């Protein structure tokens, strides 16, 4: 009898939990939220850190956008569902999905789980190389990669690092997050330009720099605290976190490393979509690109607002975003400099044989011509300029 009662109680508790989960609604449908027939719902994948601030700022400042620009992301469910509204017209409903960095965004797009993705150029290009019908519609940001050393390290700048690597008693151990991360590749080439030898084997005593993969940890903090590495090269906001936590100091922005000027505007994140999405929903994409362009403009002209929005969305402490956001170059309208930087990047990844598919043997010009589809963003920028809504060049 007692056993039956216990089993029943446990069963009822589990059933109640499942019923609660099944019926628990986060929000009641509002008649104003109902979508008109034919308005599409598209999923937008993103990573969740401040590289995608243009999207987050637009989402958080919907009312400001509606008032100042007439086009906005109207919040339906915070951080998850937004209607893209242009004047009185709802162009589409966007569901934000935090899909993660690296290859996760293009992987989700290849499976059809997201229609639009914000993420790293490297991963998008790699999937396109393997035959996925992806196009990069616009850049999101460039730069923001730093060289950080232990806080108490005597090395305070790039020249000192080069000197120590050449003359020091032991190799410097510098961490990186992934083998094809832009930061790591730029750093390697800068070492070569300075004539510093580097390797991956900790037993190579004669090497100037030993590169250490963080592995699955993806965070330099534990390795920095344990002094397992002397420093690391990585993108923001990881750099700002290490500095804010008192573990490291930034000694160089990778864009400034030698050969001088070669790494300025090196690509980081972009907005990508499948060719099917581009063909089926050009209006939604153009509307979203307009919002991103306007948001990028706001980031440049109102940095306090940008930092506040970055902190509100990512939940990183305000001080961390204060250190991170100003070092990232936010860019949505493709410039000649960005396209040139994309070509430099292609040459760089050719050295590590990143591409083994359709881009394996193409020239940088052909690569850029195939992967980039900048028609919509250029149209969007032109229309906004005609209305006098874009402030920065």
């Amino acid at each position, binding site marked *: 009898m007692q*056993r039956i009662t216990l089993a029943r109680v*446990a069963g009822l508790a*589990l059933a109640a*939990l*499942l019923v*609660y*989960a*099944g*019926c*628990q*609604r*986060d*929000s009641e*449908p509002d008649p104003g939220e109902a979508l008109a027939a034919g308005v599409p*719902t598209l999923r937008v*994948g993103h990573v*969740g850190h401040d590289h995608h601030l243009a999207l987050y700022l637009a989402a958080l400042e919907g009312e400001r956008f509606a008032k100042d620009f007439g086009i906005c992301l109207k919040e339906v*469910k915070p951080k*998850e*569902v937004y209607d893209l509204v242009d004047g009185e017209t709802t162009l589409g*409903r966007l*569901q934000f*999905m*935090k*899909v*993660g960095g690296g290859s*996760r965004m293009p*992987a*989700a797009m290849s*499976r*059809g*789980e997201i229609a639009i993705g914000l993420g790293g150029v490297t991963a998008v290009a790699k999937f396109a190389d393997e035959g996925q019908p992806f196009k990069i519609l616009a850049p999101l940001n460039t730069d923001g990669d730093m060289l950080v050393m232990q806080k108490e390290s005597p090395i305070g700048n790039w020249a000192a690092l080069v000197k120590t690597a050449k003359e020091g008693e032991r190799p410097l151990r510098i961490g990186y997050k992934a083998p094809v991360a832009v930061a790591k590749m730029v750093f390697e080439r800068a070492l070569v330009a300075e004539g510093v030898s580097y390797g991956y084997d900790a037993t190579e005593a004669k090497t100037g720099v030993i590169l250490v993969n963080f592995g699955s*940890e*993806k*965070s330099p*903090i*534990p390795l920095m*605290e344990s002094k397992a590495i002397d420093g690391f090269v990585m993108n923001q906001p990881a750099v700002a*976190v290490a500095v804010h*936590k*008192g*573990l490291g100091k930034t000694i160089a922005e990778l864009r400034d490393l030698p050969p001088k000027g070669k790494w300025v505007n090196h690509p980081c994140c972009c907005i990508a979509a499948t060719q099917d999405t581009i063909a089926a929903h050009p209006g939604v994409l153009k509307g979203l690109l307009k919002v991103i362009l306007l948001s990028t403009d706001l980031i440049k002209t109102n940095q306090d607002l940008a930092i506040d929005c970055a902190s509100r969305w*990512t*939940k*990183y*402490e305000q001080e961390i975003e204060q250190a991170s956001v100003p070092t990232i170059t936010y860019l949505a309208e493709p410039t000649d400099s960005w396209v040139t930087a994309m070509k430099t990047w292609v040459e760089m990844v050719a050295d590590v044989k990143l591409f083994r598919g359709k881009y394996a043997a193409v020239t940088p010009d052909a690569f850029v011509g195939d992967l980039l589809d900048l028609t919509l963003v250029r149209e969007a920028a032109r229309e906004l300029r005609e209305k006098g809504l874009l402030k920065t060049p």
Partner: protein
Amino acid sequence: MNGKRLIVRVLLGAVVPLAILVVWHLASAGSVVVPSIGAVLDVLLHPLREPPALDATSLASGALISVLRVVCGFGLAALTAVPIGIGVGRSDTVRRLLAPTMAAAMVISPIAWIPVAIIAFGLSSPATAIYGDEAWRYGLLDQVRFAIVAVIWLGAFFPIALNAAAGARGVRDIYIEAARVLGASRRQVLSKIILPGAAPAIVTGLRVGGGIAWRVIIAAEIFPGTRGGLGYMIATAHEQASYEYAFASIIVIGAIGLALDGALRLAARRVSRWQPKER
């Protein structure tokens, strides 16, 4: 005397946890990665508070999401593994058909199946299956991603099935024959002889499977599209260097796992009561 014994037992049991606390306290001095005991306690004592500097739901909400995922994955594993295990244990044909595959699959870490689960199930959930594009309104149900449940199921299935098989195989034929002589149907033999006979082994399998399910959840909750759960909280806390939340989540996972194991141990004791009599 009894009181003295109790005190000694409690003191002995407290030695290791106290040593851990002392080491923790010493390690946390000046450390970013190891938070202070006070900081972790603060998180544990405010389970409903939204983390101020972490892109995650509250600890309680994360625990609820994780429990829901484990309940679904583990429940499905129990429902599927017990009948299959009994089939393997009692039928030569089923054993020849499944046993080699099960033995091989058992040693593969469920985490290795994560990419396969993502490809098979994507971002689908019971909410997307029922409510389609409106799934976002049912946040809790939408977080029970089929891919996560599938990985937990895989982790728990094999220990339960193999234990059920061993238990069913261990039921003495003499009992079954005696029941048949007395006119028992196949169903009665199954429900009155085989199932009770295999129950202790099944519960042992459930305990092992439950433990694995809780271990798997940490890795499984870094799936794309995940917004909550204790594993998600640990991963995000590492990324954002808010380690007090990682430690609090680890403690909660341990506590829930301990409670689950305690419940299953109690169940094991109940279903095994007849065993000493038989011996």
